[in-house]
């Protein structure tokens, strides 16, 4: 299958390993990956901070750049959630009817990585080997916006060598929330403290998730406290052999 990669601005810039792993994993499974170079950002940061008008050009760009592709994948439950739930809304407020239907159409062809693997490519065992004790944090947007359910866990359970340990209070937010972590840094830190306590309590040496943003937040805290626990994107674990 020919799959277009939406790398997301964050992975492209700060966490390229997550995007590279997505490419290498899909190629290993026998698919062709293309990277439309005109892509930038889904606009979620603008929308969620109160700048919908400014996000319009990014939403237009996403719809036109990815329109030619039947299947689009992003290694982020949060960006996919924004594409599915916010693009049409902003298009309706600031764009035109044509953009609304184009945005809806492209969004319906956009999948989060675990959705693509399980729902579209129908594979649970991706042939990965990752000999570590791992705990999985279901990010809020992957869980409650994109609704990936237990798909990431189903994929992780098939990874050879991987010791999957359950994260207590897994469904509680890590406190990232985009600009929330800046505007309400102290409350965000209080939420992160509890998330880190739960991660450390599992004895895992790796915390994984489907979003580089939440992992940047959790990883930033775990690193500051010198816990020795690493954060690794789900795509990197699934790509490992």
């Amino acid at each position, binding site marked *: 299958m020919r799959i277009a990669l939406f*790398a997301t601005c964050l992975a*492209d*810039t*700060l*966490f*390229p390993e997550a*995007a*590279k792993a997505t490419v290498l994993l899909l190629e290993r499974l026998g698919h062709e990956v293309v*990277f439309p*170079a005109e*892509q*930038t*950002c889904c*606009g979620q*940061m*603008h*929308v*969620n*901070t*109160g*700048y*919908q008008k*400014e*996000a319009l*050009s*990014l939403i237009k*760009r996403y719809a036109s750049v990815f329109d030619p592709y039947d299947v689009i994948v992003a290694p982020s439950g949060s960006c996919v959630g924004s594409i599915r739930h*916010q693009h049409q*809304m902003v298009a309706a407020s600031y764009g035109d009817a044509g953009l609304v239907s184009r945005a809806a159409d492209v969004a319906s062809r956009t999948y989060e990585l675990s959705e693509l693997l399980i729902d579209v490519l129908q594979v649970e065992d991706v042939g990965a080997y990752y000999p570590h004790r791992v705990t999985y944090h279901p990010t*809020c*947007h992957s*869980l*409650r*916006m994109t609704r990936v359910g237990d798909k990431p866990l189903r994929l992780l359970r098939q990874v050879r060598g991987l010791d999957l340990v359950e994260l207590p209070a897994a*469904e*509680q*937010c890590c*406190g*990232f*929330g*985009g*600009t*929330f*972590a*800046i*505007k*309400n*840094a*102290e*409350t965000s*830190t*209080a*939420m*992160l403290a509890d998330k880190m306590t739960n991660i450390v309590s599992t004895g895992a040496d790796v915390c994984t998730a489907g979003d580089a943003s939440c992992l*940047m*937040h959790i990883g*930033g*805290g775990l*690193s*500051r406290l010198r816990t020795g626990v690493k954060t690794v994107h789900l795509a990197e674990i699934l790509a490992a052999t």
Partner: protein
Amino acid sequence: MSTFLGMPATAPRGVGHLRGSLPFPEAAHEALGNSQLRRNLRHATTTIRGKSGKVIAELPDWQQLRDAGSAIKADVMSRLPSLLEQLEENVRAAGGVVHWAADANEANRIVTDLVRATGSPRVIKVKSMATQEIGLNEALEEAGITPVETDLAELIVQLGEDKPSHILVPAIHRNRSEIREIFLRAMPGVDPALTDDPPVLAAAARRYLRETFLSTKVAVSGANFAIAETGTLGVVESEGNGRMCLTLPDTLITVMGIEKVLPTWRDLEVFLQLLPRASTGERMNPYTTMWTGVTPGDGPQNFHLVLLDNGRSAVLADTVGRQALHCIRCSACLNVCPVYERTGGHSYGSVYPGPIGAVLSPQLTGVADNASLPYASSLCGACFDACPVKIDIPSLLVHLRNQVPHPAGEKAVMKAAAYTMARPRLYANAQRAAKLARIAGRRGRGLPPPLSGWTAGRDLPEIPKQTFRDWWAER
């Protein structure tokens, strides 16, 4: 939302409790450092979450009930004026008197005048969010009338000269030793040997309240529901103190937000299943009191209904924002909110705290007066999943953030970011320039404000040697 002539007014300043004195992050700063508060909140919200989750799981049709609740409320909002007129007509026909209050000042004046006319120096009160919202107690006190809260937790708050911090359990921030101290200090006729044993504390309140019930001729209540087709009002509660107020006095005055009306008696079937399970985690609330006007020889012989707007028509005018009026004040969103659990209710400044408060308060006052509240959320979405009438609170927060007046510096940065991201070549150059961020020092400790909040508790990621797109181009 655009403004036009004849736009309904928002809730007035200088009266009531919809505005805090500090922006949310500053108010939260204090709460986050209060270890007793943090412990109380964690314990209380975890307990209610567990209880509620259990009884909700018993209902196979919970999702359909939520859909039904949402649909009924959407219908109500689409024809609110005619339903209110129908309610007025039926309350009058049953012997009640209906008053229309455009805002808090008018509602306070109406209630104060009604109490004065009875000559009673005191009123007993049923727990009510609407009267907290308008600051009725302060207005009554100014007129020389003593309001006595009869809900145990509201009584604790009142005697402690405190503010409620939760919609359902307003004294959630207090523990039993604090409650004992408050009772010893402020409860008339309290036994000085009072202990902090919960049954002992409850018995002390009971003794005090029984005397008050039997000697007070006027009661003030809110209402959970009003039925337009019959003119019936309803209050649901746990303690029975509400029923004392609703049945014993000669005069009953009910202050109700206009959004509480339901079209038909049958609609109650949905809400009486949704509310207790989402709220207290009970299958059914212990006391449900319904009354229709005046019944000769039984219960209050004078009944007044005060229909309160106080910004609600302005909320209704926003076709997206009006969902907030669907709220049935169950407080499920507070109990699942990770922000509320850590900051408590007082940080929100308004009597409506938590996720629903973060959308309702700014709409009632106009967003400029509560500009920090729509940002008091990580948009985690737990509130939306918990809401028994499916209010999409995260989307409403995003909707309100889009209306907030933005700080100039932030606006410039966001515009520049959008400009760059709309131009792939410029964007790629900016990405490469990000490597310069290494000047922030090893692991990026100590970024300048407003980013300093991040580096105070978290390291920054190492800037990678190569962006993904550069790697792709080299392949």
